[in-house]
């Protein structure tokens, strides 16, 4: 691992300035992803700007919704009373993430910006378009059991690994940013980018932009929300397939539903098609199965990941029928 300069900062604006000025600089929050990437040679930075002292770790709960500071730790958010009571899908997604040790360190901002777990991306000696643009994508013809069936391109099919992002997407959250040109906010739906021609760009974040907060709009319906994560061992593992659902029923009909998926797509994946199938319809296993088929209509399975197409549909049935009291 290459030696790097260390720049501690106290104010958000100072942090932004520091990253803008120092060449090859990056923010470091919990460091749980960044340091591994640097050790593996997947990412290089001349300077790390330590943002841990910024006053951006609080969680505030108001009638408008929940405002989670960009430096709030995963554990802190998962344990927050309002999160547990009003947004269970969020608490569940966080508690199903990583390990207690990692959750103690890892921040909300860092979580949204963590990079893919694609093995080729993290092996500096392999080609990879996301790491080294134009070098190729060995996953297309290589080992792709963990890779995306939706949202990929012929340049990259890597999955975005965040569980939190999937839950936030289902909750219509908004990401607050502070950049050299001042603050702005971006909806979660659109924050992460599909690889397209430029797989090295994961998000809409501009250079030196800092995540200051994530805002989750208050909706009573979010009380009926849940996260289902399927993985290859019981805990401490990324999703093979995950589903976040927020469901509002009127009688046996679906008044509103928001569905987001992890493990199957290059970004946290919202499916308007699947939601449209269910919205206004009676909630039945048959309707959920139709929604599942709508979800995967465009799926492009590869050599090892075809099972995800079937699995995500079953996971959807499992989650929604539980949430809707069908079983």
């Amino acid at each position, binding site marked *: 691992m290459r*030696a790097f300069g260390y720049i501690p900062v106290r104010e958000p604006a100072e942090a932004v300035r520091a990253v803008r000025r120092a060449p090859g600089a990056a923010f470091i929050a919990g460091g749980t992803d960044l340091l591994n990437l640097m050790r*593996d040679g997947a990412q290089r930075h001349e300077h790390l700007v330590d943002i841990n002292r910024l006053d951006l770790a609080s969680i505030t709960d108001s009638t408008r919704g929940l405002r989670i500071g960009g430096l709030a730790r995963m554990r802190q958010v998962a344990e927050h009373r309002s999160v547990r009571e009003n947004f269970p899908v969020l608490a569940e997604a966080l508690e199903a993430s990583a390990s207690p040790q990692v959750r103690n360190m890892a921040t909300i901002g860092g979580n949204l910006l963590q990079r893919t777990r694609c093995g080729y991306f993290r*092996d500096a000696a392999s080609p990879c378009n996301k790491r080294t643009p134009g070098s190729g994508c060995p996953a297309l013809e290589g*080992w792709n*059991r963990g890779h995306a069936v939706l949202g990929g391109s012929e340049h990259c099919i890597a999955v975005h690994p965040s569980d939190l992002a999937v839950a936030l997407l289902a909750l219509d959250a908004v990401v607050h940013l502070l950049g050299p040109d001042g603050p702005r906010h971006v909806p979660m739906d659109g924050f992460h980018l599909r690889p397209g021609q430029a797989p090295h760009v994961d998000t809409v974040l501009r250079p030196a932009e800092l995540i200051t907060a994530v805002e989750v709009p208050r909706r009573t319906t979010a009380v009926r929300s849940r996260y289902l994560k399927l993985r*290859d*061992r019981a*805990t401490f593992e990324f999703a093979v397939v995950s589903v976040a659902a927020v469901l509002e029923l009127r009688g046996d009909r679906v008044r509103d539903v928001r569905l987001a998926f992890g493990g199957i797509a290059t970004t946290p994946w919202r499916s308007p098609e699947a939601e449209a199938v269910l919205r206004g319809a009676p909630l039945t296993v048959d309707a959920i199965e139709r929604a599942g088929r709508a979800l995967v209509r465009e799926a492009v399975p590869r050599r090892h990941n075809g099972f995800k197409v079937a699995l995500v549909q*079953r996971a959807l049935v499992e989650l929604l029928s539980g949430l809707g009291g069908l079983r």
Partner: protein
Amino acid sequence: MNGGLVGRPVSRVDGRAKVTGAARYPADDPVPGALHGFLVTSAVARGEVVGIDTSEALAHPGVVAVYTHLDLPRLTVPPFPYCKGFIPLQGTAVHHAGQPVAIVLAATVEQAQEAANLVRVDYRAEPPTASIDDATEPPHMPRPFRDRPNEITRGDAAEALVAAEVRLEVRYSSPTRHHNPIEPHATTAQWDGDRLTVHETAQGVNLTRSVLAVAFGLPPERIRVLAPFLGGGFGAKGPVWSHTILTVAAARLAGRPVRLVLSRAQMFTLTGHRAEFRQHLRIGATRQGKLTALVETTTAQLTRTEESIFNESDSTSTLYDCPNVHIRQEGVPLDIATSSYMRSPETTAHFGLETALDELSWELGVDPVELRRRNHTAVNQETGAMIRGKHLLDCYRIASEAFGWSRRAPRPGATKDGDEYVGWGMATEAHTFAAAPANPPVTASVTVGADGRAVLRIATQDIGTGTYTVISQVAADALGMPLDAVTAVIGDSALPFASVSAGSATIASVTGPVDKAARSARDAVVALAVADQRSPLAGVPADEVVTGHGHLFHVRDRARRDSYRAVLGRHGGPVEATGSLPNAPGHSYGAVFLEVRVHARLGSVRVTRVATAHDMGRVMNRRTARGQVLGGVTWGIGHALMEHTVYDRHTARVVNPNLSTYLVPVCADTPAVESHFVDRPDPGSTALGARGFGETPITGVPAAIGNAVYHATGRRVRDLPITRDKLL
């Protein structure tokens, strides 16, 4: 007399040191003046190094040297237990991705690592072959490895198969797996003229010494290897690997001590693994389930430089009574690193045998335990000799009763609990343990000092299994001292000779010598006492003196007593004795019964209940023995359900060389285990009735899980690991 420490669940004598950090592992202590080494490894899997530019690396701060094949002296490729067939940095050929092509020495680890990134290597690359399925040439049968044939023939298996009332033909497959001990491999090499000291993460200090002696053409006496503690080995630290040799060579070139620690990723290419494996099994049987023919052909991954087969078919050959057996162990060379022994080498082929018996049991409608009973043998299938002290039938009885096997649902897929199918499965466990070589003999030394305490010295190892504890129990019992009066000193080749801690050979091979040395020391002290007019025991015949709790007593008049401390104090110096005793190889056995729950729609598999019973001769320490069972069950769960090294088909590079993507079980994957032991001394043992045991638990676990998954769902998965995609 002493309350018998042997057999009691004594807690680890080194436990406190380990959890407080007082135990120093081979890479823990700083060595004054040592440089830190880091290996530059090949990006390509097959071809040749055509150029190396070290200038940028050499210019990096702190870098002292970068050595390539142009710098290293020519070394001799040692035979087993060096299992690579070549030493890197001796030429330009590249045999696998991750092969060392240069070694960087720098003042700090970080400098060495970064400079390693700066070494530019140009290759002429050829397309590699990474898996058995992609091999272009057909499998072949290699030369015998360690004098063991790859073909075993008994009776006429082909004819018996044709004539069999019932035939079963099945194929099983299993991927590469890596040992992944938590402690990375580390070497610290220090030359002092032509004397060499090596602190090594070694399962065998003497084995390491002999390999280095061959590689460097040195008399073994000039080499000292130390490994007082080990953070897990599982076979990965049994052989000596190339990084050890390269570190020693670099230290000599640099004229300074060098420490090198492998990265986790490097452990996936530089330290061996369980080879990828295919198994074609044909079974002939009577309608009652008596085996009449076993025909097995296995295919293991080999390399172009080394053709040893480690995934042995011992179980097929010896576990059950069958007159007609034909086994062929074949292999195909691939362009990946050499495989090696991994706890337990039999497990891979044993999975096929124990799964096939389950398949046969369903076909015949015979309970799988009953099927195994009908094929039980009391005779060594290879030699025809009676096996003394084999209690496998007791294992079936004890474990099945503990588990409640008699309540098993008679059909697959018949039991559902909520969203999950519940299934029960069982398998036999069996393991061949090794004997220490007869020459030089394994020897222990016991010294009783003027303080009345004993020091036990022997060049064995504690690889985490509890050697320190068990040999202290043995010596304390033999001396008649409390446990804390005995200090064991091990893990140093300068101590009296012992062999490698592999093949479950440690306790079986060191207990006899330790017991003998301690008894001799005790006898010497008794002799001193009875000859000493100042002793209350003066004049008592030596055989009328007994010892216990650090004291010497007259056997009939316990008021006449002396103490070790008093006797040695008067004597004015220590008393030392040594002991040697050979041991023989043999088998340990067991039975594992377990329950799985398989989610009906999502295919998730959980192991929820396990009961085991083992026959290992005398149980020296129930606590450390149980530790082996827990570890074995956990490994078995990993083996069956998740562990899997992935190679890219095109580059033959490991795609998951880390513990984030090479999954091993976590606590939530591992249920409580109810472990039982038959605990009857083996009459042929020279180790106080004990046999080698450590690797026995695990052997049956993967098959028991697969069998339980079948019972739960009616789905037979013959390709490991059993991941949910195979069950949807």
